[in-house]
């Protein structure tokens, strides 16, 4: 019990590490609560990045220096945010929250509590925690670095040797702090990630739409993830982390904050989190960045914007791939079949299976509801194309991946609900993108 408590409490180092950046004036546009959630997400990325860099350099992991370096890195990143005046404007809507907003907050809190109850009662535990994420983290914590002896052993091929390191790094960090891997505590990362998302998302969505709409959309996203967390048994695996990073990154990119250096840096760090949380974070990040640069090219300077969006992810993933290459462990992600070896004749079966297994958790309501909200939304803005096209791109990518298997039914059964789950957040965010709404910046501060 004590080890479990220490394990989960050690993750409080994430917001501590990220706070020096989020405390900068450039981010005061977001509320304190919102910045706390964002700091947790950013701190997780920085902590994991330093752990990977330490492993690459052959330096043993020690929790206190790692947190100190992550916090120092967050502080130094302040110098890349540009003028903090650009985003300093206070939100226009200062009235007390009304009935709708209070209902949205209540539902969000209830969804997080339900996820906590599900994870805490061992009802949502992912089997992958015990076969992949946890054993890797435990071995890394024991070795105080990325344990090459385990990754090199053919007996442990099932651990997905090249898989990006953020979740295993953070679990290893918590295991070092607690003295051992705490399996039950690791399942609580589901409600923890949802709580961070619940803190940050309403504020990040606020520039997109009126407050009541931004908060109810956030409530829908959090409640959908909370429901799926239990239905799909993801507590302890990488999904909750991917939800946190992808939903926040998309919300930042779709909003006006992404027109500033500070917003782009924040989006870049969140994209890095997505890239290093799960393999599907990479196609997400690539699609999101390309679309953002294409749609907003007239409002931004492409070079600096692309650098801020891409550099954090390139450093984090580059360090991981460099580690794999220098240790002769891997030279890229493992393949799920030969690229052009596509079984088109199975397309109908694959689509039918996907539909069947997305229907299972709550009659597909987690996807149908945000899609319906998108269809109902009045005066959609061109920017809605970013989340919509990213969602479509990822859906095509997943179908394409499944088409590489001779019989993907079982694979689809245990993975489709999970891999398609972030798409619901993109649809909900797209439903908020409208012309001339929200709490937008003055035109003279949008260029960076």
């Amino acid at each position, binding site marked *: *019990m004590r080890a479990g408590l220490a394990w989960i409490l050690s993750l409080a180092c994430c917001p501590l590490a990220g706070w020096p950046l989020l405390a900068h004036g450039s981010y005061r546009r977001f509320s304190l609560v919102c910045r706390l959630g964002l700091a947790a997400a950013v701190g997780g990325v920085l902590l994991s990045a330093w752990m990977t860099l330490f492993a690459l350099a052959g330096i043993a992991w020690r929790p206190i220096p790692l947190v100190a370096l992550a916090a120092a890195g967050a502080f130094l990143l302040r110098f890349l945010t540009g003028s903090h005046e650009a985003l300093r404007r206070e939100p226009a809507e200062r009235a007390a929250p009304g009935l*709708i907003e209070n*209902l*949205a907050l209540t*539902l969000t809190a*209830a*969804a997080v509590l*339900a*996820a906590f*109850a*599900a994870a*805490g*009662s*061992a*009802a*949502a*535990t992912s089997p992958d*925690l*015990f*076969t992949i994420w*946890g*054993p890797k983290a*435990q*071995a890394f914590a*024991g070795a105080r670095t990325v344990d090459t002896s385990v990754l090199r052993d053919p*007996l*442990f091929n*099932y651990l997905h040797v090249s898989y990006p390191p953020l979740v295993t790094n953070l679990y290893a960090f918590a295991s070092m702090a607690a003295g*051992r*891997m705490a*399996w*039950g505590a690791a*399942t609580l990362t589901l409600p923890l990630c949802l709580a961070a998302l619940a803190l940050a998302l309403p504020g990040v969505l606020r520039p997109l739409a*009126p407050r*009541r*709409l931004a908060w*109810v959309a956030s*409530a*829908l996203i959090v*409640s*959908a993830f*909370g*429901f799926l967390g*239990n239905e799909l*048994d993801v*507590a*302890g695996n990488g999904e909750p982390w991917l939800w946190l990073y992808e939903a926040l990154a998309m919300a930042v990119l779709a909003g006006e904050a992404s027109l500033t250096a500070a917003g782009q840096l924040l989006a870049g760090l969140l994209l890095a989190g997505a890239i290093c949380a799960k393999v599907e974070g990479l196609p997400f990040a690539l699609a999101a960045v390309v679309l953002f640069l294409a749609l907003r090219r007239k409002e931004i300077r492409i070079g600096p914007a692309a650098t801020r969006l891409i550099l954090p992810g390139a450093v984090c993933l580059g360090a991981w791939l460099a580690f794999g290459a220098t240790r002769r462990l891997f030279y890229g992600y493992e393949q799920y079949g030969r690229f052009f070896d596509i079984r088109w004749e199975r397309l109908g079966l694959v689509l039918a299976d996907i539909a069947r297994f997305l229907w299972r958790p*709550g009659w597909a*309501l*987690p996807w149908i*509801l*945000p899609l*319906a*909200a998108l269809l*109902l939304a*009045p*005066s959609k803005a061109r920017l809605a194309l970013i989340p919509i096209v990213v969602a479509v791109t990822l859906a095509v990518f997943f179908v394409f991946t499944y088409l590489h298997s001779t019989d993907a039914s079982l694979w689809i059964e245990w993975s489709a609900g999970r891999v398609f789950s972030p798409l619901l957040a993109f649809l*909900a965010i797209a*439903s908020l993108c*409208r012309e001339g709404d929200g709490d937008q910046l003055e035109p003279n501060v949008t260029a960076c």
Partner: protein
Amino acid sequence: MRIRPDTPQLFLLLGGAAILTVLAITRLPPLPDLLHAPSTPFDHSAPPAAVRQYRLFVEAAAVVPAGASVSAICAPRSPACETSLHREAFALLPGRKVLAAAVWDTPTHSEDQADFLIVAGPKPATSPGNLLLETPAGSVWRRSGR
């Protein structure tokens, strides 16, 4: 009174959040199970056999010393079952040298070299060594002469 153009969307999002939250609550285990800590992280999310195996490994960790070699086998023998047992043993017996009796559903016979043997299922007809522990899920043995 004029209805705002976003009102239908607003109520859809709010109603959707309410439905999904209620659905999430209805899927929770019964209240008494929520009020006390689960005995394993699998209590309500895995088949009872997996819960029993988890308990077997946790109890085995108390009798298999750090640094010892250990292998997990199924009774009756099954390479598929032993492949998954090896993965669980690697997770739940840190600090021990876990030898795989089977990998990718193929027997390795490495269990012959292990100092300790964990048998999931009924006690074997012929004793593989000194019995250290017996639970409803299986037994733990120290191999003779080691």
